[in-house]
């Protein structure tokens, strides 16, 4: 069983500042979600509410159809792994892994297997780990939690590219083996885009967009072809790249049929829009001001 997520009119204030305002959000069970937003947009605040790390100022946070706050049967099956993990730095890696057994579903054998795979030194104190290894330990405890709702908040920070790749693959393998709800909050958008089924974008404490990945990719297009031909289309580009006589541009609007025909006739290839380019466009403050 994996958990659904429902937020109804949820707000969170830090003093006089709105971290989240009037959020309504429904996430189906058993999917991998990407949570995107600029720095300070409210991603971590949103995840903190889902894991009952914080209590909302207003509104209802339901996980698995039940209020998550102080609900032991629910929170024991929800895992939010924050950057660097929430560990006692004086503990050894082994002690941190064993402490995971507070969760009834924690898989210690799997955690130790992952620790070996990622070269985690079991006897070393957490405070003596490098930033990357600490991130790996956090990721290992999150995967081995075998939770019904697992959330990783920038957990990849400090990991090198091969380790991140191995982590994503392990996450996917665990998800395929045991379908559950996963939320990945990250700034490395293109790196995780292939794993995501739906994307939620928050901006300035509000829900900006929530759609499946295909819908996002259909919001625009990438056109690649001879530079002159691309320029001749006269499209407003979000981003562009040029290599010799070839040019690639990203546009934020779905292309109409005549434009597609002109592009095809000019030898221009049309592909889906990159999620990162679209995200940059959607959260551009100047765009909203206009």
């Amino acid at each position, binding site marked *: 069983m994996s958990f659904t997520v429902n937020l109804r009119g949820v707000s969170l204030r830090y003093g006089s500042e709105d971290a989240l305002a009037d959020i309504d959000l429904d996430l189906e069970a058993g999917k991998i979600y990407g949570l995107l937003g600029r720095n300070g947009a409210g991603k971590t605040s949103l995840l*903190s509410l889902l894991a009952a790390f914080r209590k909302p100022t207003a509104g209802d946070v339901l996980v698995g159809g039940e209020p998550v706050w*102080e609900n032991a049967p629910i929170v024991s*099956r929800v*895992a939010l792994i924050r950057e660097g*993990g*929430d560990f006692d730095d004086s503990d050894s890696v082994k002690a941190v892994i064993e*402490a995971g057994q507070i969760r009834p579903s924690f898989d210690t054998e799997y955690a130790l297997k992952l620790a070996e795979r990622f070269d985690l030194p079991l006897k070393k104190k957490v405070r003596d780990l490098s930033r990357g290894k600490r991130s790996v330990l956090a990721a290992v405890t999150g995967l081995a939690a075998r939770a019904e709702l697992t959330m990783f908040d920038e957990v990849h920070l400090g990991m090198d590219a091969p380790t991140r790749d191995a982590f994503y693959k392990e996450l996917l393998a665990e998800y395929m083996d045991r379908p559950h709800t996963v939320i990945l909050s990250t700034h490395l958008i293109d790196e995780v885009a292939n794993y995501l089924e739906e994307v939620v974008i928050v901006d300035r404490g509000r829900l900006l967009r929530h759609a499946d990945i295909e819908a996002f990719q259909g919001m625009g297009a990438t056109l690649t072809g001879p530079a002159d031909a691309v320029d001749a289309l006269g499209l407003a580009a979000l981003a562009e790249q040029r290599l010799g006589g070839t040019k690639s541009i990203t546009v934020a609007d779905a292309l109409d049929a005549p434009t597609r025909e002109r592009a095809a006739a000019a030898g221009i290839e049309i592909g889906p829009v990159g999620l990162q380019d679209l995200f940059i466009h959607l959260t551009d403050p100047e765009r909203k001001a206009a």
Partner: protein
Amino acid sequence: MTALANLRLPTRRYALGAGFTTEALKFFKYWIAAALVLAFALPFAVAQWNDITISAWYYAANAGKWFTAFVSGGFLFVLVPNMIATGLTRRELAVSMGLFGVLWSLALGAIACAGLLAERASYAAMGWSHGIDANDAIAPIGSAAETAAFGAHYPLLYLVYFAAGALVGAASYRWESAGWLLLVPVLPVVFSLDNALYDTKPVGPGWAGFLGGLIGDWGRGLIIALLLATAAALAAAAYRILIDIPLRAKKA
């Protein structure tokens, strides 16, 4: 925390409370052993130059009150983010800490009481006077029964200090820069009752127990009742702070 073996949900709070106690005792076993060795060896060294008239273990046992307060406050400060991030509710954590407090106070109180009795036997064998510093005068603790009765209050005192430490620990996590200020009202109350119970100055800033002289004549029964009520009030205040405590944001 070792060898938890996956805990069952409805009872994990009790298993954790017992686990905290055994882990804390294991973690501090050398500290406790060092206090024992020091308190029992020191009088033999001092006896080379001076008469021994005062219990050394009394000071070690009293230092245990501060130690207890630091253990509870320190543990809670660290455990709040760790345990909640591991899927524990605040209520479960509060129950675990409550059980930890009772078991820890009983265990340390038993060590304190047993130490006093052992020390009395040792002092008697050496012909030394087994006394305490009772407000600037050395007062003998008394017979074995009186020593046992004297030592029997330690579990209660440790419990009060444990609750006080938990309150300050919870407040310090919740209000990062101001939580420790709860020491200002808590310390005089705890010190005064401690002072009043034994008619002695507690280990630490003795002036903070200034009310002890005023309430010292109220009778031991009433003071014990007040200590129990204080432990309950401190625990209730710590629970109130803990029950909706937000986890701090991570800092880069």
